[in-house]
């Protein structure tokens, strides 16, 4: 996974609450056996009209949103299924951070394992970010801060372990594999009981 240390980018705003994983990647795109290439499926049924052309009214399709790497989404983003295709699609499209006032558990866990920072900000900060689409933010993963255009800061909480994985660009499997002895001991103790 790509390390995420600092991110300077504009925001794109999807103010809707409860944006579910079927919205993020519709199920018909889940037949892939790859991790890559899902960017085209991201928000597919919002992004494209029935004839396959881009829907110019959708936030991500507006000229000013091109290249935006931070998604500010309405409350309870990523609810629904456990499909990791959701963060794969976001990362493939170029979104490296999702900010909301509440983020669904499985989505958040999946995002952080794929170099996509998914963090919760306060209601007031969320409201302000929703009301100011397209602003430039500077995210500092190590410091746990988001710098606003006026120099002000938003702080965010991030599990220490997940933070280190993001900074180092490593996934958690190496850590688990290093505990093989403890796992074997656990299995033996249980089977003896």
């Amino acid at each position, binding site marked *: 996974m790509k390390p995420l240390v600092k991110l300077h980018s504009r925001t794109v705003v999807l103010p809707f609450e409860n944006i579910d994983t079927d919205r993020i990647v519709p199920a018909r795109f889940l037949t892939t056996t790859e991790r890559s290439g899902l960017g085209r499926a991201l928000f597919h049924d919002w992004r494209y009209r029935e004839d396959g052309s881009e829907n110019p009214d959708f936030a991500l399709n507006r000229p000013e949103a091109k290249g935006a790497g931070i998604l500010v989404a309405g409350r309870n983003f990523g609810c629904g299924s456990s499909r990791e295709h959701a963060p794969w699609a976001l990362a493939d499209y170029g979104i490296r951070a999702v900010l909301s006032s509440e983020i669904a558990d499985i989505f958040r*866990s*999946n995002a952080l394992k794929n170099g996509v920072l998914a963090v919760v900000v306060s209601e007031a900060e969320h409201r302000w970010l929703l009301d100011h689409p397209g602003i430039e933010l500077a995210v500092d993963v190590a410091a746990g801060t988001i710098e606003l255009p006026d120099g002000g800061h938003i702080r965010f909480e991030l599990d220490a*372990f997940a933070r280190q994985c993001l900074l180092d660009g490593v996934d*958690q499997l190496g850590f688990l594999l290093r*505990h093989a002895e403890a796992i074997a001991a656990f299995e033996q103790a249980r089977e003896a009981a």
Partner: protein
Amino acid sequence: MTTPRTLFEKIWDSHLVAPESASAPAILYIDLQLLHEVTSPQAFDELRARGLTVRRPDRVVATLDHSTPTLPPDADGRRPYASVEAEQQVATLERNAREFGLELHGWGSAHRGIVHVIGPELGVTQPGMTIVCGDSHTSTHGAFGALAFGIGTTEVGHVLATQCLLQRKPRTLAIHVEGELRPGVGAKDLILHVIGRIGVNGGTGHVVEYRGSTIEALSMEERMTVCNMSIEAGARAGLIAPDETTFAWLKGRERAPQGADWDRAVERWRTLRSDDGARYDAEVRIDAAAIEPSITYGTHPGMVAPLAAKVPAAANAQEQRALDYMQLEAGRPLAGTPVDIVFVGSCTNSRLPDLREAASLLRGRRIADGLRMLVVPGSEQVKLDAEREGLHDVFRAAGAEWREPGCSMCLGMNGDIGKPGQLIVSTSNRNFEGRQGPGVRTVLASPLVAAATALAGRIADPRDFAAQEAA
């Protein structure tokens, strides 16, 4: 004296390889991983890329359910897959299971079916276990007093390689339901009511334990329906303490402990109850008598109302957007809304008692002209059992389609979808925009409401049909 612990804490504590600390999450041992074709291919690729093997093939059970066609093979034995990719995805799991030596209930297995139907059916789902699957409805297995939750594909790889997961300890939420359910009100109505009450994010960060006399009186299939939809309230897991109902249901299942092992297991399982005085992080109390047959009217499962109610007014712009999508007008009755398709199936409601319930209303009647009804049993075993009772004949005689087992129209990955604008009354778990096909509108309901609706061609109350029968 030891501190009283909840059921969740007992299971959590007994699976800790290493406790959590400020710098690292807990290492949690996983007793059973269930696999299906959609969320596993990339995990196996990761194992190959790192030169790893599956640590405990004996703790993995795989099946085919999401991308599989529900129509039988043609005369040449070709299955009508929705796409080449779908067929390849199934072939990929078949190949991976062979390469890594895993138990796969694929085509031809008498136990192929929806992963959350076959786990319990085989008896591999057992009280006190930790169970994971790359599928959010893994919460279903919590009905047996197992800590069961959905994970992403990266984590599927972690469990394949190490039989463990890194997890922060979730909080606990007790949902107490007391009293008797009214006639015509079932487990689906109960869980829809709960979600309506606590909201689609009411369980976020929590493991739910369903408790109380109403829950204790539920059958195992009903408990599975309840735990299945825990994720629709944002909770990763739902739990019900195992009891005599659980033990009776599991006894004699192919993979359940046998003989003296069974007696020892039951003795252990009896300790899997929250201690008196155990503390939960949050509690909710629900009066069973207040629950009515319920359906959804919006685009998430929290937008739910009694079937007999009028479409509630939108509380905000988001809800108005949902009503517009659903083409429903606030203040108009929900019952009577014209319906195009009725779907009975999914990991929520595709077990034998669900099919019996739907068949009980359809027996000797015909579904409405122009309406399409799909009945999709949850597994090969459910299909066989239903056919032994003649339920397939009841459905077919009524004009419904009797299909092969699978997830089918719940998420429409296999091509079982509606057309834009169509309204589907579905016994599944998600009414998200476009879930059952682009532009398709979904109303979630119980098998009884689904059957009544199929007969009427409009959203209908099963109690009206029951009354008609009695008259």
